[in-house]
């Protein structure tokens, strides 16, 4: 085959170098991206090469090993950080209609938002639970691997323009009041209600390397598994399954499915269109 002239970001990401970079990151920084879906990691590293002005992954690897601060920046390229509130209103509406009636039967509730990024989904769930009268007895664990994202999530301050845009989704999700009931304007942003922030514990957790840490009635893990290869998907779903109580609920992204995974038989599809599953045993 004829060689083509590689331009930066084209052929610069060789398989061997990429594998070596991910191995080094795991060894030195204990973040495991080795089971991430490759096309996406490759694409992100192509952007990172341009941003860090490195001409090869091998060079980037040298720098990451020599400069811990640079790893912190590289982490931004390896994870998705921004999400929306009430993304896919159909999902939240289905939770309200089909899951909340079960949750109401528990005296105390634990909910886990796995892969919470900057917290929008965790706050959306807190709002939903508050409106259903369940928040006072609920503890929400929201976890991610990215410390900067967790800090933003913890602060609970979002851009006022974005909040205005989330209002439509909130209404379509079956919101019982107005999204504005749940935040106050301050410092040019929107600060989420203290009551919501108090109900959520944000912490570091990796679906690639950690195990379940609590027994919960509902896990929401949406658009996280798509970034994993099949083997890591099986591991991660195993962790979520371990965390769920008997007959507990698992919500995935609308284009995600348990169908092709090792855990398909352990769940029933409660609301197939909203990708809400229920643990069988």
């Amino acid at each position: 085959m004829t060689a083509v002239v590689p331009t930066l970001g084209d052929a610069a990401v060789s398989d061997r170098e990429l594998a070596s970079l991910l191995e080094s990151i795991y060894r030195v920084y204990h973040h495991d991206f080795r089971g991430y879906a490759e096309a996406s990691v490759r694409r992100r590293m192509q952007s990172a090469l341009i941003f860090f002005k490195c001409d090869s992954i091998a060079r980037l690897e040298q720098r990451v090993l020599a400069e811990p601060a640079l790893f912190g920046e590289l982490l931004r390229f390896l994870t998705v950080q921004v999400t929306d509130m009430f993304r896919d209103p159909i999902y939240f509406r289905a939770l309200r209609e089909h899951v909340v009636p079960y949750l109401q039967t528990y005296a105390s509730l634990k909910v886990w938002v796995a892969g919470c990024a900057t917290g929008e989904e965790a706050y959306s769930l807190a709002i939903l639970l508050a409106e259903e009268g369940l928040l006072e007895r609920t503890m929400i664990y929201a976890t991610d691997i990215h410390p900067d994202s967790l800090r933003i999530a913890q602060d609970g301050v979002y851009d006022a323009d974005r909040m205005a845009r989330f209002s439509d989704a909130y209404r379509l999700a079956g919101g019982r009041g107005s999204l504005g009931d749940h935040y106050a304007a301050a410092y040019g942003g929107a600060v989420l209600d203290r009551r919501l922030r108090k109900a959520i514990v944000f912490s570091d957790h990796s679906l690639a390397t950690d195990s379940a840490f609590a027994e919960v009635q509902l896990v929401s893990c949406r658009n996280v598994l798509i970034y994993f290869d099949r083997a890591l998907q099986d591991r991660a779903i195993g962790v979520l399954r371990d965390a769920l109580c008997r007959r507990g609920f698992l919500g995935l992204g609308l284009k995600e499915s348990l169908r092709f995974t090792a855990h398909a038989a352990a769940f029933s599809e409660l609301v197939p269109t909203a990708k809400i599953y229920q643990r069988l045993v």
Partner: protein
Amino acid sequence: MSARTTALRLIVIGGSAGALDVMLELCAALPDTLTTPIVIVLHLQASHISLVPELLARTCRRPVREVEDKLALEAGTVYVAPPNYHVLVERGATLALSVDAPVHYSRPSIDVLFETAADSFGAATLGVVLSGANEDGARGLARIHRAGGAAVVQDPATALYPTMPTAALAAVGRGAQVLSIAELSSLFARLDGGMNLHQDSLR
């Protein structure tokens, strides 16, 4: 330069404003003997339901389905990107989804599909850019071309919105093949895995 004898293994198509009608015509032209998988990105307003797979299935003789995460590419099947997700082509001939930031304000983005197709299928890729009002797809088509694949662009003169094909032409340069809608239709009617991308005329 050695003779290139790469057989066609993947077709990727991208379009935006003004492209739906062309896609319908091209899918209707596909032969029922088609063995190459086709992946389509069509920009739409974000909504969780897309009617595009259903529309295409009405006239297409091959199976049409919306992309799901980690779906294995099957022979002669037409895949359509779901709204609000990027579609990436993996090395193992599977498709993956992502919710990474929009590219050119678009998710799904044509560039994301085309660039990962070029990385995974290289010279065995045929990329087609249709009508559209932004420049998504230009970088991706250039990447397919640099990887040795075939770069086809709808003749901007026949496009309802010429910005997208014009940008793709500028990015690819002389190696791009410019086809009218009728020529695209005739190409799609002849598509099959035995086609040699670099020896058979695409026009």
